[in-house]
């Protein structure tokens, strides 16, 4: 195999290269951001005024569009008056990477402006709690129901058509209703996440369960298993890895519903933090908070992938093309080599 072939079609790359590419996938967008922020003649559409000079509507600290600034500067020059001074900057909504990096630390250390406002870690904790509860309630009902629908045609026919209909109703549409029924605190937010996740969950899990190899079920039947025993001992273990992957993907969906859920009733959690920081024009904090969501989601997913590898040892070799592998090769264990049979004495005379 040619080792210098980076672009082999459907060919596995060596682990070292996979790791390099994974790092690169994060470094590339970061590099673009740095390029835009630190190279002064790239973009930087505004001028940060240091000294207003003779221009009466300029003031120190104001950001002026470049064209306006140069026009006023030319006017002042022509009139022989004091020139305004300033330097090129990016708009306030694109802070430089180092500012956002600092904000990661300072956002946690800075006390809230008002007494009753939450700290950042409290906001994050609140959001995680909302997600966790919404997802937990959804899974408590959704997973068993999905397994039932996948296993028995009866449940599939009696449940799925309605769920199929309901999943087209956007969860935020129930916001007002949830507030009317459940009040303005956390309950309606949890309900929104539940509505956003549950219906998809039932259908996706039912589908995974239906994909169980019928040969395994037949084999179990010929071994004397029937009814619930087959569901418990064959259908569930056979589909558990797929269900686990479904759950990981659905947890990502739950996060997307979070921001919608948190504006229902009284705004709370990370959404409240982001909105307030945006109002104070602390965009470095806004970016830090958004990145925080990504980091929490991504690291949860990686953690779950790693736990999956421990929980399902029989998948370690076969699950080579799952998200774990393509996403983060660190957490993919080395495949186990197939064992070779011991040389049994095979007698040539086949006696009977």
């Amino acid at each position, binding site marked *: 195999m040619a080792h210098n072939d980076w672009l082999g079609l459907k060919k596995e790359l060596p682990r070292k290269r996979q790791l390099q590419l994974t790092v690169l996938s994060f470094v590339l967008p970061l590099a673009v951001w740095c390029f835009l922020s630190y190279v002064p003649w790239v973009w930087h559409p505004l001028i940060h005024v240091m000294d207003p000079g003779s221009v009466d509507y300029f003031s120190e600290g104001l950001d002026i569009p470049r064209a306006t600034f140069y026009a006023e500067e030319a006017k002042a020059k022509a009139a022989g008056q004091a020139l305004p001074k300033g330097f090129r900057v990016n708009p306030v909504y694109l802070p430089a990477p180092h500012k956002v990096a600092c904000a990661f630390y300072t956002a946690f250390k800075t006390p809230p402006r008002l007494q009753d406002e939450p700290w950042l870690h409290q906001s994050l904790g609140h959001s995680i709690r909302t997600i966790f509860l919404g997802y937990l309630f959804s899974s408590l009902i959704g997973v068993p129901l999905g397994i039932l629908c996948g296993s028995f045609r009866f449940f599939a026919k009696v449940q799925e058509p309605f769920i199929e209909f309901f999943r087209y109703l956007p969860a935020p549409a129930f916001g007002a209703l949830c507030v009317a029924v459940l009040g303005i605190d956390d309950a309606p937010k949890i309900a929104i996440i539940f509505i956003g996740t549950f219906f998809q969950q039932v259908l996706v899990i039912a589908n995974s369960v239906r994909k169980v*190899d019928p*040969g*395994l079920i*037949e*084999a*179990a*039947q*010929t*071994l*004397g*298993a*029937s009814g619930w*025993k087959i569901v418990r*001992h*064959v259908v569930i*273990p*056979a589909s*558990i890895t797929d269900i686990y992957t479904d759950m990981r993907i659905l947890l990502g969906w739950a996060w997307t519903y979070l921001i919608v859920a948190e504006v229902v009733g009284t705004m709370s959690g990370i959404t409240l933090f982001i909105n307030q920081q945006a109002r104070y024009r602390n965009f470095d904090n806004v970016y830090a908070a958004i990145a925080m969501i990504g980091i929490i989601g991504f690291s949860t997913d990686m953690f779950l992938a790693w736990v999956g590898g421990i929980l*399902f*040892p*029989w998948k370690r*070799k*076969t699950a080579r093309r799952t998200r774990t592998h393509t996403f983060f090769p660190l957490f993919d264990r080395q495949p*186990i080599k*197939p*064992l*070779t*049979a*011991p040389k*049994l004495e*095979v*007698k*040539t*005379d*086949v*006696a*009977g």
Partner: protein
Amino acid sequence: MSPGELKLPDYREQLPAVAARFERIRQRPVILTIRNLKKSFGSNGGTRVVFDHVSLDIHRREFICAVGPSGCGKSTLARIVVGLDDATGGEVLLDGKAVAGPGPDRGMVFQGYTLFPWLTVKRNVMFGLQMHGKAPSTADVEAREWLDMVGLAKFENSYPHELSGGMKQRVAIARALANNPRILIMDEPFAALDAQTRCHMQGYLMQIWKKVDVTILFITHDLDEASLLADRILVMGTNPGGVVEFIENPVPRPRSAAQLISPEFLALKKRLEEHIHPPAETETVEKLPMIKLTEAGDEVE
């Protein structure tokens, strides 16, 4: 008779030892009876009869092979006996009692292994035992014994994906036999294996069959395999589907690869070939309108 063809004995001629063995088999109790079995597929007007009027008796510890052209319903027959498919008519009796649905008294080995990937080899073998409520410790001991017998004791803690095809199929055989079935039905179990492994597996199967009190119904499309393994060979046909002939295998036991060119074997093989590929059919292979696609002047024929 065309020139070059061997003068073969009649496939019904049996050596005294072989005839005596069949006499002994006939004395044994009947394990499986199939009476007037019929299977047809399809609805709304057009039904296709796969087979009809299939009747046979299988005696205890007999090794039966079913052969036939594809589409003759030999696999369907196996699935009906196991209880995975329903017959359209007729009945299947095991020890005189009609069977309905799958049960542990009829073991099955599938072509596709169907081992449970989430269980270790030993736990796969324990599966049937535990389904019957055997204590895990008892099941554990029994599973080890069965794995020992198929020569895979060392792999008891491996997962199926770590085994080769032949080893997987040996685990599947151990798993089916652990239930002590009255009859073991094997549906083209070695068809997915390479020729070398298949040959070894046939040897293993013979050894296992010698040691275990089990009757075997073995579905195959490989005529050599059937002739090498079977006591009697059930030949099935199409149009109309059903039993064409139930042949007593004249090849004496113990069998070996050397017998592949013995007169009895060749006579049997010839008879089977006549059933599966009738002479009239072989003539009808159309000559394809082949355009010459080579430029090199290597006229081979």
